[in-house]
């Protein structure tokens, strides 16, 4: 078959056809995969909430968005109020984020009603593999009192890395990631647990301890 000439009509026609076909194919695939992606995200979140609350037998309320301005930046916290099957409050799981070493560090952290941390999981991160990326394991309970955040209450202890005079050992060679991680949790504690959970208005800047 002869190659088409590069005339204006040919070029416009070909480009249009290619774009339309590509668009249709993409729309088809998107329709096919979108429910699956949504399901995976929802499953991950549900599993994450169970993990951070340390209990499988829970019911999770509709999420509430809470915005606040901290150190000049607007932060959004997503709060999932968690109750046991009898309707007794178990506290809440809060999605919070902070800039880590390589990008956004998104943490889901579970608080009991007094603000003591029940558990945490890293939802999304771009930290250095082998260093900051260890945050998902480093601060867990199994690693001993000096490293873990689980069981601590950010309001009652010095919730920073030991290098900054705090009570928690940072990940070796990943102080920036550790600081971001702790700050994310501390911010969530300050905004969600300490302040009443009614308003969605922007809270004013608050000096961290």
């Amino acid at each position, binding site marked *: 078959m002869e*190659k088409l000439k590069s005339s204006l009509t040919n070029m416009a026609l*070909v480009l249009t056809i290619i774009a339309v076909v590509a668009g249709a194919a993409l729309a088809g695939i998107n329709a096919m995969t979108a429910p699956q992606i949504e399901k*995976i995200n929802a499953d991950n979140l549900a599993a994450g909430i169970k993990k951070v609350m340390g209990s499988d037998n829970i019911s999770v309320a509709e999420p509430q968005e809470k915005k606040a301005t901290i150190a000049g930046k607007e932060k959004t916290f997503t709060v999932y109020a968690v109750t046991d099957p009898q309707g007794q409050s178990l506290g809440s799981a809060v999605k919070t984020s902070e800039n880590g070493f390589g990008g956004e560090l998104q943490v889901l952290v579970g608080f009991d009603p007094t603000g003591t941390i029940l558990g945490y999981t890293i939802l999304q991160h771009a930290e*250095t*593999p082998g260093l900051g990326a260890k945050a998902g394991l480093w601060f867990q309970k199994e690693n001993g009192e000096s490293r873990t955040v689980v069981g601590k209450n950010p309001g009652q202890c010095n919730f920073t890395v030991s290098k900054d005079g705090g009570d928690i050992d940072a990940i070796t060679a990943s102080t920036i990631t550790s600081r971001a991680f702790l700050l994310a949790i501390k911010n969530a504690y300050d905004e969600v647990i300490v302040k009443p959970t009614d308003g969605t208005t922007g809270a004013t800047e608050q000096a961290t301890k």
Partner: protein
Amino acid sequence: MNGIVKENPTFVLLLGMCPTLGTTSSAINGLSMGVATMFVLILSNLIISLIKNLVPDMVRIPSYIVVIASLVTMLQMLMQAYVPGIYATLGLFIPLIVVNCIILGRAEAFAAKNSPVASIFDGIGIGLGFTMALTLLGAVREFLGTGVLFKSDDFGIAGITLQGEDYGMLMFVLAPGAFIALGYLIAIVNKMRKA
């Protein structure tokens, strides 16, 4: 089938350095990136070879880019839906397959001049070469950096522990290690090609 050793895209042609250096922090990551690129490469070679006579010369680059970009977007959606673990690791680098010069390079240099069947084989050859190079580089970096091979938390593969985790040289998992390891691998491959 020149792509595997003689015209290996990574070690000989030095194409596609961005994903090469960025995603090879472990052997499994390198392998998944290689397979993802190979998938796009085979399909783009096939499609471009099929439409080569329908596309006027002056608009061929934009047409090829649309084809490649659509394939990559499809791949991205499919991976997100069915292999979320790998997607989470490779996330940022998947869209970058679009601008991987291997793919456009093969489209221009091979698929636009050859039959669909030959183009598929070219895609397989170059894709395998790229996958092998990335896996090798990832394995070297992972081994020197962490002392473990083929470990992947996303797949729950424990990997082969060759030396204790504590003996790793972290630098090899980080960016400088990528350049150093790649440099040595290129030197070794060059030596082997000449021998």
